[in-house]
């Protein structure tokens, strides 16, 4: 029993952590927290099921198409919902513009795809229901791969350094002549792919289900809020902690009340530490 709680907890935790990284990648490039992060996770599952099961593409082609589609949606987010409101960040219009876009994605998916959960293909066909089943370890592998990939990107490549520079100090980066706008678009494309990977690798757990969008928005934001906005390490730790905590609560008090428990604890923790457990302190007001 403990093993299965741990297995599903880590798997869900990996998905939450990936959505958290999606939030952070968009935030670092633009100081915008976007409601499309969870929708990208949902689309990862829907596109995967669409390309592989419905259109019969080979797995790897389906994955590449899913990456491409979600990257495009990431870029659309940047153009439609982020760029126009960047000038007035303090008015928090981005909350509304990205929410509007998330709602549109949600509605189009509900109407053109389905409002019911649809099956997701098995990727390798390894394991059959036990805790060695691929649906438990695939998200963890995907999460590990993303972490390693991002580390290499940020530490070893020039464009990665540029990403970091933008995240650290936007104005200084622009003063150095960095192409801030193109880097931001690239960040959003990257965020789209990370979100897609979350949905694709977690497809067997979450299915291709339109309602996952706002669910992932919420559960993916919890690790970000607790870990501090823009802090990937915090998001990963927070994501896995949330996954295991949620599955334990599931087992102890039942599925539906476990979400009440998660919510209440989330709010209490946030009220105690509004900047997150690893976040920076507040900015000056006057």
């Amino acid at each position, binding site marked *: 029993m403990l093993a299965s709680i741990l297995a599903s907890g880590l798997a869900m935790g990996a998905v939450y952590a990936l959505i958290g990284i999606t939030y952070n990648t968009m935030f670092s490039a633009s100081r915008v927290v976007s409601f499309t992060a969870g929708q990208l996770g949902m689309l990862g599952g829907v596109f995967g099921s669409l390309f592989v099961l419905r259109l019969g593409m080979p797995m790897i082609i389906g994955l590449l198409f899913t990456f491409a589609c979600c990257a495009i949606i990431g870029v659309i987010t940047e153009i439609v919902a982020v760029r126009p409101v960047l000038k007035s960040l303090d008015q928090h219009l981005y909350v509304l513009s990205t929410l509007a876009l998330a*709602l549109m994605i949600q509605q189009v998916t509900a109407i053109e795809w389905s409002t019911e959960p649809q099956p997701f293909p098995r990727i390798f066909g390894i394991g059959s229901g036990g805790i060695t089943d691929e649906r438990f370890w695939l998200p963890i592998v995907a999460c590990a791969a993303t972490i390693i990939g991002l580390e290499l990107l940020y530490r070893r490549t020039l464009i990665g350094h540029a990403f970091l520079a933008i995240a650290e100090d936007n104005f200084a980066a622009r003063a150095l002549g960095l192409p801030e706008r193109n880097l931001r678009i690239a960040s959003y494309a990257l965020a789209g792919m990370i979100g897609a990977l979350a949905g694709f690798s977690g497809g067997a757990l979450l299915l291709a289900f339109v309602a996952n969008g706002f669910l992932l928005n919420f559960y993916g934001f919890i690790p970000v809020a607790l870990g501090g906005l823009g802090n990937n390490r915090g998001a990963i730790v927070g994501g896995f902690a949330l996954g295991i905590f949620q599955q334990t609560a599931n087992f102890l008090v039942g599925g539906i009340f476990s979400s009440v428990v998660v919510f209440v604890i989330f709010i209490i923790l946030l009220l105690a530490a509004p900047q997150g457990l690893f976040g920076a302190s507040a900015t000056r007001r006057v």
Partner: protein
Amino acid sequence: MQGVASAGAAAKETNYASVAWSQFVPLVVVFVLAIVVPFVSNDYWVLIATRAAVYWVLVAGLNLMIGFAGQLAIGYVALLTLGAYITSVLAAGNVMPPVNPFIALGVAGLGGSVFGVIVGLPALRLRTFYFAISTLGFATIVTQTALAWQSVTGGGIGLPGPEFPAPLNTHWGFYYFCLAIAAFCTWMTYNVAQSRFGRALIAVRDADVAADATGISKPRLLIVVFLFCGALAAVAGGLFASLQTYITPEAFTFDLSVLFFIAVLIGGRGSILGPLLGTVILTLLPEFAAPLAAWSTFLYAVLLLVIVLAAPGGIAALLDFKSRNPLQSNRAIVPRPALLDDVLAARTRGGVITLRNVVLKFGGVRAVDDVDLNIRPGEIHGLIGPNGSGKTTILNVISGFYRPEAGEVTFGGVQLDLGKPETRAARGIARTFQTPRIIGEASVLQNVMIGGTIRGRATFAETLLLLPRHRRDEAMLRKMALQALGSVGLESLADVRADRLQHSELRFIEIARALMSQPTFLLLDEPAAGLAADEIQRLGQFIQEIVRRGVGVMLVEHHADLIFDICHHVTVLNLGRVLASGTPAEIRVHKEVVSAYLGG
């Protein structure tokens, strides 16, 4: 001069009554039209109109929260769900003997106000997106609980909604019942909007720092509003359940939440009429575009995006014809200090503000390093020094925005609460800001009235019901604000939107707002920055007139001429330390000051 001014004020008085009236008339027109609906259509349209009325009961409250206070509660369907289930469960008798539906509706209102506060609490500490997502989480949980708690809520199968006794069980009867409640709610929120509470909400939204400085306690204000909004939303839920005749958790989709907050945003912030029209339009939209019914939420989302990107003012801004009239171009600010006697009539005299050994560090920088300072009533105390010497930081310590690490700040021998800016107005300390913190979307008069918020006596409940104490408050604040505006010479701009004014005018409006709290001490943070030479001269005279009436002024400035002209005492700071302190004549010849700052 004074006679002329008060005659002008009287003319203004009637002008404002008519302005308030002209805002109320369209609301009356909407409800008169609504009364006619059953006579000119069929039962189907009565049903749709009932739905619009029920939605408006919720949106009317939500409007105060989103449109006025700027708190983006996107999951407010949770409170509709809660109200619907409380009313239905009590009326159906699932947990105790069946209750009269009216009593059930009342209980739902009480329950709603409790949960309204619980949902709203995170807003007191969290930033916008965090709050939005926490309301979203709450919405998910309420629906899931309704699904799971089968013994009470009937789970997925649901339960019948409450049935009200005759004549409210007919289409017409129920419609007029809902319409009456909607009209009552409109009236109450209108009263709030026109009150010091409504203005304080907008201040919290657009100029929270100024709200703190004028003594508005954000938590207390918001909690009262959350109570009210929650109650309205839950009552709307009870009516909704009765309208549906049968409720299941699926009836309360997130789409409904979307409709609610988009109705407010399409309507426009800080308006009552706009969101009312928004609610009606969004309720009717799917009816007129039947083939598009499935796409209605998509349409709402598109509307939201268009509104945010293209017309942030919403319907209310489109209907605001007054703000398109050009203003007179070559306006001059001519203060009338004689009016200050009336403006400062209720002022209490106080002691000395004393700073002793105050230390404040930002990271490794000692921004204020062991500073002693005495500021006396009836004196102008100038604070000068190069950039980064700690002038504004000291002002922020006195006004409570920064909390010093060591040292003490006393006023008349009594400790000031460190780091609590909202307590200063009540102690008689008012301030202005380096960049004027003005609410652009409110009128100049409303901006000034905000300064007197703590002088109001009526409770929120009295304001809701337009009771006498509330009306006395408003009359008093309006009179004081017109006097204060008159004293700085800007009363002709009283009903102009503040964002249409020039920078120099905003500086004087901030002073007028600060005078509204009848301060013992006035802290001015670079009031002359951005002013023309003749304006600086008039500002100087005006400050002297204020001080002549016993007020103490602390003046942080870079204009050395102004400082040496009007100050009684000057303190020079350098790198967070006091470099010199004395009369202007002493400072002018102080060797170190001349070499460090004034230049020889």
